[in-house]
């Protein structure tokens, strides 16, 4: 039996300890905000925050995050009003929206590490998150806005 701490809550798992965290979150814990996009840490759609770092849940097994704090989009902010979320809404960032949870989690993790990133630093930090609709210009501007006060 594995015990995980997700968004401050204990979750138990008695199945395959190698199960990717992504599928535990989505299919076993019902936390579907975190998305599947590639399964190989290539697109960032499954980004969650473990302790204070962005990680890709699709290549992280549940046993890797025992005794660590997992934060998903559902736990990012109690009312959904994290500065990054607010900035995203203010600039109408999304198109289809599917990758945006991963983008938002990545941006939130960036601001934990670097509260005032410049545009090059934003581009570098967000380069692991793919958006097929092509919202990059707004993503870059929204991260900048979140870092300077929404």
């Amino acid at each position, binding site marked *: 039996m594995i015990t995980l701490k997700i968004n401050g809550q204990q979750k138990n798992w008695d*199945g*395959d300890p190698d*199960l*990717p965290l*992504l*599928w*535990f979150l*989505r*299919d*076993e814990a*019902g936390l*579907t*905000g*975190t*998305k*599947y*996009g*590639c*399964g*190989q840490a*290539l*697109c960032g*759609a499954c980004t969650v925050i473990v302790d204070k770092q962005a990680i890709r849940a699709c290549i992280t097994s549940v046993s890797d995050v025992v005794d660590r704090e997992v934060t*998903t*989009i*559902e736990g990012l902010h109690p009312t*959904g009003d994290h500065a990054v*979320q607010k900035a*995203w*809404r203010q600039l*109408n960032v*999304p*198109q*289809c*929206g*599917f*990758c*945006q*949870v991963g983008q*938002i989690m990545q941006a939130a993790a960036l601001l934990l590490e670097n509260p005032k990133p410049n545009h090059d630093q*934003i*581009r*570098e930090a*967000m*380069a*692991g*998150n*793919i*958006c*097929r*609709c*092509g*919202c*990059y*210009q*707004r*993503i*870059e501007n929204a991260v900048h806005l979140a870092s300077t006060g929404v």
Partner: protein
Amino acid sequence: MNMSTNPKKLRGFERYVKVDNVSRRSILKGLGLAGGFVLAAPVMSRPGFAAYKTGAGEMPHGTVVDPRVFVAIAPDGIVTIVAHRAEMGTGVRTSLPMIVAEEMEADWSRVRIQQAHGDEVKFGNQDTDGSRSTRHYLIPMRQIGASARTMLEGAAAKRWGVPATEVKAVNHEVVHSASGRRIGFGDLAADAAKQSVPSVEGLRLKDPKDFRYLGKGQISMVDLRDITVGTARYGADVRLPGMKYAVIARPPVTGGKVASFDGAAAMKVSGVEKVMEVKGWPWPSKFQPLGGVAVIARNTGAAIKGRDALKIVWDDGANGKYESVAYRAELEAAARKPGLVVRKEGDVEAALKGADKVIVGEYYLPHLAHVAMEPPVAVADVKGDKAEIWGPVQSAGGTREDVAKTLGIPQENVTVNVTLLGGGFGRKSKCDFAIEAALLSKELGAPVKVQWTREDDIRNGFLHTVSVERIEAGLDKSGKVTAWRHRSVAPSIASTFAAGALHQAPFELGMGLVDMPFEIANVQCENPEAAARTRIGWFRSVSNIPRAFAVQSMVAELAQATKRDPKDMLLELIGSPRIVKLDSVKDLWNYGEPYDSYPIDTARLRKVVELVAEKGGWGRSIPKGHGLGIAAHRSFVSYIATIVEVAVDDKGKLTVPRVDTAIDCGTYVNPERIQSQIEGAAIMGLSLAKHGAVTFKDGKVQQGNFDDSPLLRIDESPAVTNVYIVPPGPDTPPSGVGEPGVPPFAPALINAIFAATGKRIRALPIGKQLEA
């Protein structure tokens, strides 16, 4: 009230796919017998809103104009408006209901949206494809809103005992200004529902100068908050009690099938419950599943791990030798010989022979995969002779039809619930993944989710065609272009519907080949044969991608040959402001629209070129190593021109400091979403130009994920994309937005690279070509 329900059984694309073959005559005959060939949805003339016709009535099931179907008002005043088209990022789930709210004078903050399930008899055509939603539904949605408003006003007038002409709906209430009385929509709801639905002909539409929402761009997408907090529900997010999770190993070669398999190792994987062969259909079979071996598990991760442990022997079938390098050579050979003539003006052969100079450009564009961030996925629950589907489908009605047909049950027994789509781009117009889920659910007697992995998406999809476009242009001594021969060779989407389709269908020929708008005396367009070796499908912008690439690259090549400015060359070729006549083209495809409402108007094409040149600073001074390129293209009955600035360093590293795009999409609803679509089109255009290619070896796709099939990332994206929207004239009908932005991007980019480096790229993707 049902304005123009179309009795035709066939869906639109099938009709056009079949135009080329022998069944055409019988289809037309059949339509005649079915009681009338509805050419266009009727639209009334109104002050400030002149009559125009669209092809909406030609779509299967046409349009339905009935407020009782689309609008509900609760006693607390909350107005619920039905969104009957699919949301894949264009904003349509917001913009169409907004049109209804505008006309009925509803307060947007008290409007809720309800997504329609698949039912085209009830809602009209739901196939969200072809950049059609706004152009087909602007007027019907206004009429629905106006009907609802008229009923509310009638109910208030009756209650007060005053003539209806004395009352007016204003911001969610009806007002009688003579007496100062007012009453809210919620209080009127029950009485309004008893009013008869007014005739469309007698409706009063709002004067556009009184619009509060339309054309303003102030309203955000209705799903914006849900998207940012993770509660927006996509197909992948549907969970049902007792639901099983499935992934399928599909034949790696189109037309292949399972010879034998061993599922013993897969069954040992923790969480795997069952391994089973699933039915496939022989190629081509439209959107029917490919078949293969399914692994059923308690979660998706276990199903994928189980699938990795399968041992399958495949029978590859006739396409086992498909190989992209050899196929390219076949297409090039075909393009160098005469082909089926699909447009002919003057005598191109003689004009080329007599030309002072002939410039030849041969352009190659590879297969592309849609790669929506949400790979195909669907949930099905089949019980007895009833089926319920949840999924990200572009065509809810088509999905309902195809699932019913496959299961052998009546359409009325199939409910299709449309979730948000995590991107579509044409892939989710094909409902194979929903059929797969339905078949598995029927077999297992439980709800099933079928999840495609990214590798499945890239290897087993319906790819954008692969093409060679060859243009020969003859110039006279003065540098004027006197001859234009364009041969387009590419396997047709028709090949996905019927075996033996060797020529492109009218809807493909009409996307940038036969509708070429230049003013040239001798023009010939040809379509040599090409046989498909894999499934070909619609991809955002479709054949416009290779055609705009070839035509707009050739414009710059001609400018180079005659030492002229590329923008001036482009304007000279577009020629005088006029309506282009295409009398020599049989079965001209005009995106399904009547030509008199949506002609090829070179004045509008010139206008976007001039606008983008002015706003985008064509000819501005730029640093060394930078270059500017321009391209313009009409598609989906909209006009677009793009200027791209590139920088290429001495190692061949390409960056894009700036993009400027002007679009004329006629009357528009939500300029904020138009801007986002055009920004996105620049990213997709740059992505396909730099990286986009799906290639085959031994019949199998060689790529599988974002490592070997990269998409553009934020650190490669244009620093800034500026969008300029041409203000519509009062009579300009709405036209497409979702697709037209993509086609001009790649040629503008390539022309800019030429300006910066002197290197002319004629084959995409760019890949490492600049590094040499």
